[in-house]
């Protein structure tokens, strides 16, 4: 425990390893906090939005109130689907005047818009999680590199002084092992958080798929009359 936090006498390579690992730790914890907040908000607002969606009969009313649930990915899907639907309806009105029917093509357009919005939302939800995966996999190796380097330097010192007493060997090795410890401290929460977020995102993706299907059903039943 003595001088555990002291960096006096630490070599430049081991010091660089410490700096890198601390950077990884700080950024990964920032991402963990950010994702916790983002996914929690997305979940809670999705639940509220779905309640509102099923209670409200009109799409234009839902669209007007959608800003209240801005963090929900389902709202983004609804906005994209609704705006595409409006464009299709406007186009249909013109085509009906010209005597051309394009019902199947209309649904396909809305479906494509929903798929595109789903992909955008998945990208948004998965943004920065790759950094957590990188931290989880790379930090222990970076720490191990610091340890190996530190032990190399310690053994060089033993060779120079010609003494292999514990007082000479122990401080260098203890300092080197600190690098592995910091690497693990950075990696363990990152891996745990990455797995947790992946699970939560998978659940949200399934909800988005369900919502897209429901939206298309409603469009097909009520708007195109099929």
């Amino acid at each position: 425990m003595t001088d555990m936090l002291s960096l006096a006498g630490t070599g430049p390579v081991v010091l660089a390893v410490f700096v890198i690992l601390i950077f990884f730790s700080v950024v990964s914890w920032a991402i963990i906090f950010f994702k916790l907040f983002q996914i929690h908000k997305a979940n809670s607002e999705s639940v509220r939005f779905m309640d509102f969606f099923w209670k409200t009969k009109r799409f234009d009313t839902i669209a007007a109130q959608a800003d209240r649930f801005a963090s929900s990915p389902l709202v983004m899907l609804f906005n994209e689907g609704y705006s595409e639907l409006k464009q299709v309806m406007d186009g249909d009105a013109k085509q009906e005047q010209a005597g051309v029917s394009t019902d199947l093509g209309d649904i396909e357009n809305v479906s494509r818009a929903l798929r595109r919005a789903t992909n955008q939302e998945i990208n948004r939800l998965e943004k920065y999680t790759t950094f957590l995966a990188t931290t989880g996999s790379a930090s222990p190796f970076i720490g191990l590199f610091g340890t190996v380097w530190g032990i190399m330097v310690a053994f060089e010192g033993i060779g120079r002084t010609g003494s292999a007493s514990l007082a000479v060997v122990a401080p260098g090795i203890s300092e080197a092992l600190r690098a592995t410890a910091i690497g693990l401290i950075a990696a363990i929460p990152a891996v745990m958080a990455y797995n947790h977020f992946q699970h939560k995102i998978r659940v949200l993706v399934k909800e988005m798929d369900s919502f897209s299907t429901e939206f298309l059903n409603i469009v097909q039943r009520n708007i195109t009359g099929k």
Partner: protein
Amino acid sequence: MHALHRRSDTWLGVTLLLSATVHVAAFVCMLWLQQLNPALDQLQTTYYVDVVNLPVVAPQAGNPLPEANATVEEAVATAPQAGPQKPPATPLPASGGGKVPPSEDHGFQERMAKLTAKAAEQRQAAALESLRAKISGGKTGMPGATGSQSGSDYTAYLHSRLKDAFRETISYQSAAPFAVVRLTIDGDGRILLTRFERSSGDKLFESAVQRAITLAEQRIVPPPGRTTYEGTFVFKPQGVTQQ
């Protein structure tokens, strides 16, 4: 939609700041805990108890008086020996050169064994009684000590502290270094002067000796009678000896 994305990403800056703060707080907490719990090696002191010569509880008690020495020697002499005891030599037949009959010899052996056992019991009882008297005497230090004598017991005490400290700091790079150090300790138990009377020529070793003296200084009590004490010690890789 894009506005919503931008809005959600601004939180990343806030969480980055939060993360940095948490890391700094964790670092400060660790520093604080380290200060709260000082190094264990400064708190734990190993005491060695000499079972033959009872430990001097307070070095200020000084040396035992000559008559007290006699008491101790007597107690040691009468104390039962830990190792296997040799049976007392059987006295040879007085004279005549005639052989003793086997039955008579056997009876003599038995009587001798009984006498030996009785004598051993008496010695054990006397030693125990002597130890009880010393323990229940209520005085610290060796029997008969008045606390006025200064000298060799404090040297032994100091030697023990130096030996403990040197075990923690020892390091050397030459083959068999040894250094002779003269210490002057003031009435408050502080080391006034550390003089290397013989240098080992090994910088690492001498640094270890110096560190051992500094470490020992934190643990030592003032000399008897709070007088200035001077003593010479020899530091070797095998340990510390008095000179």
